[in-house]
């Protein structure tokens, strides 16, 4: 399908004390099935707002958002969301957190044993079966984020939405999880929309990078197609001239064309 997810002429404005604040203007983005697209831009440019609109948590002021040919009217299990701050429920174990999602999507047609098997499969995908019975406060930040990913994937969503999923992690853990995510996406063939402010992360993971201009009234500034072959290897890419060229293009956009006046 050419346009699996599409955002057409979307505008978003918020009411504030000083009147209406236009956050996003004339946004047009489309994602093909199985494609990995990242949204990159300076903080405050509205990239998370756009992701929340695709998630259905926010409704556009005008314009249309479609997912698999249907209009996005609200949140739904066809779009799995991973939040920046993991958002696991602290009173449930990792397995129970995932089970909550599994039960919601498959509970009507499957037995408890099947639902449990799905939960374990999802945890296995992020290599956390050993932490299934642990509470979120007993595991590390990286592990929490992996449980968040497992929860989103367990619903077998049509699209995986990642809102700066590794933003709160240290550099080493982040690199490790990026590699994991590459493998998971290769295995599941997921369609992914990810918000990030990390240029290396964007180039490493994406098929296309949607670069956003600064707000207010932010819009899509440019789109870079990352033609790097998959599977990708972090260490091999370091020596790849094309990797550096792509990285340079994104950096150029962010730091020359869209430089913030001392944020």
């Amino acid at each position, binding site marked *: 399908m050419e346009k699996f997810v599409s955002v057409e002429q979307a505008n978003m404005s918020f009411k504030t004390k000083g009147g209406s604040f236009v956050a996003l203007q004339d946004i047009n983005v489309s994602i093909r099935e199985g494609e990995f697209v990242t949204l990159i831009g300076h903080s405050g440019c509205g990239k998370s707002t756009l992701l929340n609109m695709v998630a259905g948590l926010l409704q556009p002021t005008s314009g249309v958002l479609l997912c698999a040919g249907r209009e996005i009217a609200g949140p739904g299990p066809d779009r799995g*969301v991973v939040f920046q701050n993991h*958002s696991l*429920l602290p009173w449930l174990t990792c397995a129970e957190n995932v089970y909550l999602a599994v039960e919601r999507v498959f509970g009507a047609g499957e037995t408890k044993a099947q639902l449990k098997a799905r939960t374990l499969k999802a945890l296995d995908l992020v290599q956390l079966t050993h932490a299934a019975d642990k509470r979120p406060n007993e595991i590390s930040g990286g592990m929490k984020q992996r449980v968040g990913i497992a929860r989103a994937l367990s619903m077998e969503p049509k699209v995986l939405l990642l809102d700066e999923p590794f933003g709160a992690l240290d550099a080493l853990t982040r690199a490790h999880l990026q590699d994991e995510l590459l493998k998971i996406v290769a295995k599941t063939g997921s369609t992914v929309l990810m918000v990030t402010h990390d240029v290396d992360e964007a180039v490493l993971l994406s098929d296309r990078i949607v670069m956003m201009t600064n707000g207010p009234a932010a819009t899509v500034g440019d789109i870079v197609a990352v033609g790097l072959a998959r599977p990708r290897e972090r260490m091999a890419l370091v020596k790849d001239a094309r990797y550096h060229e792509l990285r340079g293009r994104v950096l150029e956009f962010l730091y020359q064309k869209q430089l913030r006046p001392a944020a």
Partner: protein
Amino acid sequence: MGAAILTHQNFGHGAPAAGATKTAAAPPPEVVDLPPPVRRPAPLVERYGDDIAGFFRGAIPVVFGIALFITVWAIVSQSSTLPGPLKTWYSAVEVFSDPFYRKGPNDQGIGWNILNSLGRVGIGFGLAALIGIPLGFMIGRFRFLSGMAAPIVSLLRPVSPLAWLPIGLLVFKAANPAAIWVIFISSIWPMIINTAAGVREVPQDYLNVAKVLNLSEWKVFTRILFPAVLPFMLTGIRLAIGVAWLVIVAAEMLTGGVGIGFWVWDEWNNLNVEHIIIAIFTVGIVGLLLEQALMLIARRFEYR
């Protein structure tokens, strides 16, 4: 103490040396001559020293505080009709030696008095929880209900609980339900207010999870709202039981019947001041135990 630390250090030096030679390719024969380290249990002071010291650091001021209190009490009792600590103690031993006697409706053991008071508090407080907690949830969840309840709650909450006693007597036409009514009305406010505040404080992140997972209202309640609000609810319950136990003494003084409050008033009429002092301590200790029990329960539900 010093010797204990020294032996400990000797072990520390001996063990890694033996381990290192084991891993070496060819262990020199003289290593075998080393005396095998004997594992003696560490001396008591070393094992529990910190605990004991910590306990004393905590206990000494408490002991001093109580000693000072009793001293002041003894001095004051010398120059007034107030019974002194020793006299009260002998009286307490007598009272508590037979707590469950029954000699007619107005003369029963202190055990019966305490149990009757606890029973009233239990019923009034339980009814308040049964009504106050769900009410708190609804007020916290729905802005309209919150707007409806706000003026009533803020108007009635500061009213002294005993002011409700005549209303209770009028409606129920009996002393016992009226006392329970006073407990009910005084302990319902903290439960409503804290539960509602807890519902309002549920982190938006958790509600977003509920939204993206599209959870049913029932699942949102059982998996997200209830566990998130529970600590707030328990705070409300703790405050409520404190108020309830505070109020029962006063209520029973006015309504009579068997109970610790009535007992205080009865002993005042008998001019038995030792018993009044015993009652004061008993009320304090029971209140403290109730509070501690609820703290224990609350601590089980802490997640972070």
